[in-house]
């Protein structure tokens, strides 16, 4: 396993992460279910985590991995709050379709 870095150029990681990030973005744009949108956002964040870890290893600098921990902290907090919001919305409107909620406009 240790020879990974010898074989795989960092560009591959970058490309892979971009693709994953892009899929996350598409998910956010395409879906109407708030829960799935939240999952897509998690996908985006995970791709960034991987990117940071890859940078960190290739640079031999622990800061990147430390940052990943913080991102995990934030992601966990965000998900907790996000799910609470979704539950709240579901209680009042009985749906979590984002397109139904458009009373505030213009």
């Amino acid at each position: 396993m240790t020879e990974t870095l010898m074989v795989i150029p960092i560009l591959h990681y970058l490309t892979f992460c971009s693709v994953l990030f892009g899929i996350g973005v598409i998910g956010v744009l395409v879906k109407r279910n708030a829960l799935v949108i939240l999952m897509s956002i998690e996908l985006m964040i995970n791709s960034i985590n991987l990117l940071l870890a890859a940078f960190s290893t290739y640079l031999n600098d622990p800061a990147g991995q430390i940052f990943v921990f913080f991102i995990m902290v934030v992601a966990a907090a965000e998900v907790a709050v996000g799910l609470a919001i979704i539950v709240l919305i579901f209680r009042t409107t009985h749906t979590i379709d984002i397109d139904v909620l458009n009373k505030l406009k213009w």
Partner: protein
Amino acid sequence: MSTIIALAVLGIITLFLGVMKKKSWLLPGILVGLAVALGLTLTGWNTDISFYHRMLVMDNYALAFNAVLIFSTFLIFLFAHHYYQPVERPLEDVYTVTLFALLGAVLMDSYGNLIMLFLGVETLSIALYILAGSHREAISSNEATLKYFLLGSFISGFLLFGIALIYGAAHSFDLQDIAHFVSALNGEWPPIFLAGLFLIIIGLAFKIAIVPFHFWAPDVYEGTPTLLTAFMASVVKTASIAALYRLFSTCLHGAQGIWESSLWILAALTILLGNLTGLYQPSAKRMLAYSSIAQSGYMILAVLAFSSRSANLLLFYTLSYSIATITAFGIVLLVREVRGNDLFTAFNGLGKNNPVEAFCMTVAMLSLTGIPPLAGFVAKFYLFSTAIGAGYLWLVLIAIVGSAVSVGYYFKPVIAMYLREGDGMKLKTPKSYKAFLLFATIVTILLGVLPFMVLKQ
């Protein structure tokens, strides 16, 4: 550093006071605590300390903006007592989250490391998602919080991506290291760095509400409980623009060519769209939302006119803007309390029935428009003349046109208050609330007459 500790401790004390059902101690405790935090901030003046490997840099820039943030929050908490009167619960959770949001804002002003920037932005945002939804029974509040949450966490993904790319290019999160990296570049910008930089700009632009990342603002402002909208419009905007400026001023010396043209276009779009759309709004709260969008366009001017003065100008601008906005929201919430809505027709006849409130509202509106001798005028005057000096004549012309258009909506409540006949209904303003409103108004006037208390020559 002491400011941050004080705010964190204050938040926890508030929480405990609430748990112990000491409702009457809550707000006084918070106000005293904020005053202490303000004092602690100011005692650090000119010390210029950085903490723990430059995670936090408490230079004068950070301290000044922190003072503005804490002062704005203080003003908002002055109004809290009356606003939350109908609620029996101690509401310690709302207050604590507001204080933690302030803590996040303080981190955003004083970061020396992109990790701290990210943590600050997230602390602020998560707290704001909660605050936007804190009026759980109102469907508008629910909608506001969902919109804000989805858009905000989506954009924070991009912010993160930007930070990761900068890390990949500069091999560090530290602003000083990035600055060294930039100065060693000799104008050969690696695309990955540029992409990272722009993604960070986008992440902050969302918080400042710059076109085209402004879409959340009107809806969320309208749905959020009014007092917390004031917090969003003042504290969040100030902290975000200060964070953006800090990034530019620390890391990107002499790299103006990179962001100049894009920010130019964004500022122009923001000014035009904010002002034009504001014209057609029937309600005061939504009008203030568009006004805040337009004002962020002017603030970008200060970032663009990058000179030794512009940090100071930005400080003065955000201060004058924050105070006027908070005053305006303070009156809007009074009107909503009595009339149930904040359409401009709800302001009819206010000048006769409630002269004090009408006067405060008028001063706030005039200051936002930029009429002498109020703070907003001085801020705009210096901003525009500095920008002209920096060669942004056309942008300033656009900004002036925008200001002229803005008269169209800023004067709507004023006209309604003084020239329309009302139904004689009076606002239920307690004496203390009036005193707070007058206090904020006097600060606006004082800043206009004696701008050099804050503005350096």
